């Protein structure tokens, strides 16, 4: 089975994130980048499926030049090879543009399964997996908390507001995973060493047949008009319970008219 796992490099979740005041896009230069946490679950699921059914896992990452940590982490975890899509024209792409670019890269690869994390911690739209399924004309198996592959068919539990749906489809398919699905492995020392020798193919937009009019800020169908930083929350009152903490809390809630 050939599996492609898509990963994104994001600003460290603990770092202060901000928009670049000139471009109104996420300021990626000012903070350390690393693999989007949720994508580690996608990598793990891909590796487990490949271990169980045999096959090969390719990681695909789109990002600015030098944003190599995310796919390197996937290689260290055990993925076989990487494709890195980088082109200045891609900067500032929205979810619609990103899904187009990724679909074009997938067009250069052979695969039975595409796996993504269900959300990136920076933009948090959660829609790229569904958009990819739409563009590729493949089954959308998103928010999976469990994946089972049997020959050419696949079955998942799709986490929903009310519980879950059991969903079946044929391969190839697009899957996104939630963090309930597995426990991502830590790269071993051997894995880290081996990753250095794994093949990495770097593509620019032209190499992936991407029409640059459809990506980046110019290709975006929506536009950020302005951004303002909100004042930080004012510091709250912290009390230590000396036996009447609950009553004092009730007093506080009463001042706010909750009680």
């Amino acid at each position, binding site marked *: 089975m050939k599996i492609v796992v898509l990963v994104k490099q994001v600003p460290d979740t603990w770092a202060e994130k901000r928009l670049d005041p000139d471009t109104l896009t996420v300021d990626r230069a000012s903070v350390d980048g690393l693999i989007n946490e949720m994508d580690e679950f996608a990598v793990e699921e891909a590796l487990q499926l490949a271990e169980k059914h045999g096959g090969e896992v390719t990681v695909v990452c789109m990002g600015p030049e030098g944003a190599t940590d995310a796919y390197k982490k996937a290689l260290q975890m055990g993925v076989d090879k990487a494709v890195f899509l980088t082109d200045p024209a891609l900067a500032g792409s929205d979810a619609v543009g990103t899904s187009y670019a990724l679909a074009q890269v997938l067009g250069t690869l052979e695969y039975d399964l595409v796996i993504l994390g269900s959300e990136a911690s920076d933009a948090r739209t959660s829609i790229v997996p569904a958009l990819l399924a739409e563009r590729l004309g493949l089954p*959308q198996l998103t928010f999976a908390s469990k994946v089972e592959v049997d020959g050419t068919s696949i079955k998942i539990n799709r986490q929903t507001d009310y519980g879950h749906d059991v969903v079946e489809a044929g391969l190839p398919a697009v899957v996104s995973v939630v963090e309930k699905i597995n426990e991502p492995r830590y790269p071993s020392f051997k894995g880290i060493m081996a990753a250095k020798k794994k093949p990495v193919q770097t593509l620019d937009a032209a190499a992936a047949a991407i029409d640059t009019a459809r990506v980046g800020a110019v290709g975006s169908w*929506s536009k950020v008009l302005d951004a*303002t930083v909100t004042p930080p929350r004012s510091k709250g009152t912290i009390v230590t319970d000396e036996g009447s903490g609950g009553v004092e809390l009730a007093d506080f809630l009463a001042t706010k008219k909750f009680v």
Partner: protein
Amino acid sequence: MAEILVLVDHADGAVKKVTLELLTKARELGTPAAVFIGSGYDEAKDKLAEYGAAKVYVAQDPELTGYVVAPKAELLAKLIAEAQPAAVLVPATAEGKEVAGRLAIKTDSGVITDAGDLRLDGDRLVAEQSIFGGSSIVHSAVTTGTPIITMRPNSTPPAAAPAAAERVEVSVELSDAAKLAKVVNRVVVPKGDRPELTEAAVVISGGRGVGSAENFSVIEALADQLGAAVGASRAAVDSGWYPHQSQVGQTGKTVSPQLYIAAGISGAIQHRAGMQTSKTIVAVNKDPEAPIFELVDYGVVGDLFKVIPQLTEEIAKRK
């Protein structure tokens, strides 16, 4: 005035509050036309009329809900072509956002996710989004096609304004591509009588500090005094103490209630991502260094098994 399509979020006809919010917002922007997909319309129609749906497009073909997301997007794409609405409003639930995204691609339209507000600026729709956990506010607009906007629950106070809710039957011949991911079983976790997490004015969440499923009764007792919904951290959900639908955070629900109470929750970044835009935040935690205290309006350093029951009792007394 042009139609504003509002995709109805409902469970077998029980209309979710977010739908009423969207109808309320749509009235500011044009003439609201609700789109009801699935079964249970008879139960839903009065609510939709009460909150101002001039028209309701009703699509009851079971195939529309028998496959993941794609059929709903196809139906809406057909309605966009036929009704030429000025905008489409969709609840910013996990599924709502996916429907909106696929619809955007089908109709060559821009999509804005997780709007907290929406207003008309001339004839342009401007959406407001709170990003990076509320630390920045951005305004954005769709520049191509029909604006497709997903709006967060709890962002507009719903207000009634009765309208005709004229029923218009609609259907769509689904493409093969819309029927690739078949729902073979729907597992519904029974829901208690408490308010829904994303709709509630007050949310009280328990974390690892609660210690067991049984101990959640302490959280529930307070919730019932306050008419609150009960949430949980991932640690509590993964321990099997509370169902995953109750998870608040990056991979759970995003809530923005008037009051959020965190009990026995440390305040990891992934948890904050789901609650830090709450208006008033309260935490009870025995560790004075817990990061949740950085966010709070009021924090109690103490044992939740002492503080929460005392609070519950005190509120009962004051009623």
